[in-house]
């Protein structure tokens, strides 16, 4: 293996000056985290609403949610991203479309990635929430209604507080997926972590160092997410359940 290892490469100044390669990596890490966290907000809120809709007795509402899930789960994420980036601005009314095209590139790339990843992950969150509500059994819902609670009240006070705690483990893996999937944003030009790594290898040819550090950074994100979610899981443990799950 004739490869010149040089770990000091990260502290060298970039060609445009004023920054080192470490700064590039950190900037990339920042975008990865920003896209993932903001997308998760959409994914979690929209996904929860859709998940509840799928369990409702109303055919129309559950039909809409089912159609949403089927569409967003059966089209590859990358294709969805391209549709948000190249097609949606064309379909919007002219003024809005033009406004989007005139945005500075980074903002429109971020907006696209954030909407795309959020709506994509919402379909997955929806399925988990639905499974969580389904796992509670018919008895809980009937008991709530028999007590004289309305259907919204039954969801609010009986079903959802249990369902959300039951689905924390599968939601943890969806949350991890948001971080990993955010790497597709590089295809529309957003300089998140993986894109910065590629850029560093192009400028320095120290491919291994750059990719090893990035792999470690992704591993660290995974570990931190798992630790945080374990803590959430412990805090919300349902007494009397094995392991709370």
């Amino acid at each position, binding site marked *: 293996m004739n490869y010149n290892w040089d770990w000091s490469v990260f502290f060298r100044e970039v060609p445009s000056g004023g920054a080192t390669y470490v700064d590039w990596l950190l900037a990339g890490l920042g975008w990865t985290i920003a896209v993932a966290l903001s997308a998760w907000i959409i994914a979690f809120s929209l996904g929860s609403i859709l998940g509840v809709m799928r369990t409702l007795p109303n055919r129309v509402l559950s039909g809409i949610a089912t159609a949403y899930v089927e*569409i967003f789960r059966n*089209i590859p994420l990358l*294709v969805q991203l391209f549709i948000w980036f190249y097609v949606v601005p064309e379909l919007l009314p002219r003024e809005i479309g033009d406004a989007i095209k005139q945005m500075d590139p980074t903002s429109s790339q971020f907006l696209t990635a954030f909407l795309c990843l959020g709506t994509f992950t919402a379909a997955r969150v929806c399925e988990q929430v639905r499974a969580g509500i389904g796992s509670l059994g018919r008895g809980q819902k009937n008991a709530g209604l028999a007590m004289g609670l309305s259907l919204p009240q039954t969801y609010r006070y009986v079903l959802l507080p249990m369902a959300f705690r039951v689905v924390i483990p599968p939601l943890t893996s969806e949350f991890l997926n948001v971080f990993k999937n*955010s790497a597709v944003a590089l295809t529309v030009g957003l300089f998140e972590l993986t894109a910065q790594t590629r850029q560093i290898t192009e400028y320095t040819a120290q491919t291994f160092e750059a*990719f090893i550090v*990035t*792999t470690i950074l*992704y591993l660290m994100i995974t570990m931190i997410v798992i630790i945080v979610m374990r803590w959430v899981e412990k805090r919300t443990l349902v007494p009397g359940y094995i392991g709370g799950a």
Partner: protein
Amino acid sequence: MYEFDWSSIPGAMPFLIDGMVLTLKLLLLAVAIGIVWGTLLALARLSRFKLLSAAAGAYVNLFRSVPLILVIFWFYFLVPFILAAITGNAGVSVGAFYSALVAFALFEAAYYCEIMRAGIQSVPRGQLSAAYAVGMTYGQAMRLVILPQAFRNMLPLLLTQSIILFQDTSLVYVISLSDFLGAASKVGTRDGRLAEMYLLAAGVYFAMSFAASSFVKRLQTRYAI
């Protein structure tokens, strides 16, 4: 409002079909290699030898923690490098297709491993004892008794994972392979019709994934125990 113009599609059909053939070739090879390697990893994870199961566990956790795109890039430069190291000839090249295949097979094996592990664990322990009691070796017990049942129990999950892999093959776009999405993108760029080509790609991927997952659902109800 945007004027759609679908006229570039008929002429581009042969190129798009070539792209779909490449996608399916990549998919089938990656699924075949991934399931075999994943099953071996699952056996390693369940092994009595601590070192072996720890190594398999580390492999699975590593691949499940990093984005697939990063893995594709890793192997895009790693495969030629390893080949050069093995053959001692820096000029050897296998092309983007094979480095993508290696990336997908090794990456998906981590997911198939977890499915097969659950499948093996779902077989009652008595079956293994029975196999040993009639004089089978470990290899025979696994090959003739445990794995066929594990495989059958997990078939819907293996297929679902393969549908996800089918969608993920579109990521080879990042190393400029002309798979179905890559072909659609190239035609769209050439004719200035990206919007139409991406909508077409979305429609085709949707139809194929939807049909495949409906099939898996039917299979699941038929084989339900």
